[in-house]
């Protein structure tokens, strides 16, 4: 008598497909900050010596600052080099280096981002929940509010956690904040106020609105649903996958956070039948 093996469960099939996209060395995420941050740093001497006009520097810097976050996101999840490897320091180096234009510590983003994964769309515990809004206009407004003094929730999250990693991140955050505003003030008081404004401060403000809207709000809106297959959605962006920083496929990241960003589209296409079966919001993608 032949015994028929039970068909694998939906979750097992899902995981088997996802596993095909985990691993490998994400070259794009390594080259990206090496080009992006280095270009941003080079803007300063280029503009200050008059080799590049300030308006051009402003446009380039805005792209640089806006693009600085994503490679750090792969580093936050230890995707570039996994924890335990003797090369893990390289993961941390890329993560920190990519964030220089934003001047935010990798440690702060990692601890708070992991909380976002644990408590996605939880009004009390998700550090990104202050972006909750039902419309794009509302999200833009929330992004502006989040940029006001004492309105972001990352510091509060670190205090609530109180773990050694959170305490270390808090210290890093304070040191970086003091350093950043000291550099800005130093530039402003030594005759470089326009460079400080247009190569750093204003690009930061513009970039943070984009990042909050596209990375925090768009894949989770209206941020009212909870649960593994409900709290994140796929969507079609008018700016395409690159213009939306890969967020069209963010649902894959929340299901399998160690799949590199560059592989999320392929993983989405492979997992689509299962996601449909699960009743996920695929946003017509």
């Amino acid at each position, binding site marked *: 008598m032949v015994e028929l093996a039970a068909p694998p469960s939906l979750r097992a099939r899902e995981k088997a497909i996802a596993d095909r996209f985990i691993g490998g060395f994400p070259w794009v995420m390594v080259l990206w900050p090496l080009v992006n941050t280095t270009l941003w740093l080079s803007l300063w001497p280029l503009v200050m010596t008059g080799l590049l006009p300030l308006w051009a520097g402003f446009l380039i810097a805005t792209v640089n600052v806006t693009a600085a976050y994503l490679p750090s996101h792969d580093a936050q999840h230890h995707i570039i080099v996994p924890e335990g490897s003797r090369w893990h320091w390289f993961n941390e180096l890329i993560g920190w280096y990519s964030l220089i234009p934003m001047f935010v510590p990798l440690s702060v983003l990692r601890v708070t981002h992991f909380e976002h994964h644990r408590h996605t769309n939880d009004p009390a515990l998700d550090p990104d929940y202050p972006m909750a809004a039902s419309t794009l206009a509302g999200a833009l407004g929330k992004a502006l509010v989040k940029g006001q003094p004492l309105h972001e929730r990352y510091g509060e999250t670190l205090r609530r956690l109180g773990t050694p990693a959170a305490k270390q991140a808090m210290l890093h955050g*304070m040191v970086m*904040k003091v350093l950043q*505003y000291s550099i*800005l*003030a130093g530039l402003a008081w030594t005759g470089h106020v326009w460079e400080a*404004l247009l190569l750093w*401060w204003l690009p930061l403000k513009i970039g943070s609105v984009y990042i909050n809207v596209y990375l925090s709000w768009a894949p989770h809106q209206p941020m009212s649903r909870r649960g593994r297959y409900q709290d994140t959605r796929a969507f079609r962006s008018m700016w395409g996958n690159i213009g939306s920083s890969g967020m069209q496929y963010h649902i894959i990241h929340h299901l399998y956070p160690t799949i590199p960003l560059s592989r999320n589209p392929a993983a989405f296409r492979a997992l689509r039948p299962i996601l449909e079966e699960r009743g996920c919001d695929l946003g017509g993608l």
Partner: protein
Amino acid sequence: MRLIAFGFSLGPILFGIGFLAPLIAALLDAAGLRAPFGVSPLTAGLIVGSLLGLVARQRRTWLW
């Protein structure tokens, strides 16, 4: 810790003095405007910048 928290709560005022003041002075210069009462652009920047910072600290916002 309280002292550090107090120091950070002064952030908007320090930003007003450290960054806004020279920025306002540069804006006045660029626009060819003179500050009232014969004060220098930098003095005007310091007055306006620190006042804006004080208001932002108390209201916890720069915008409304």
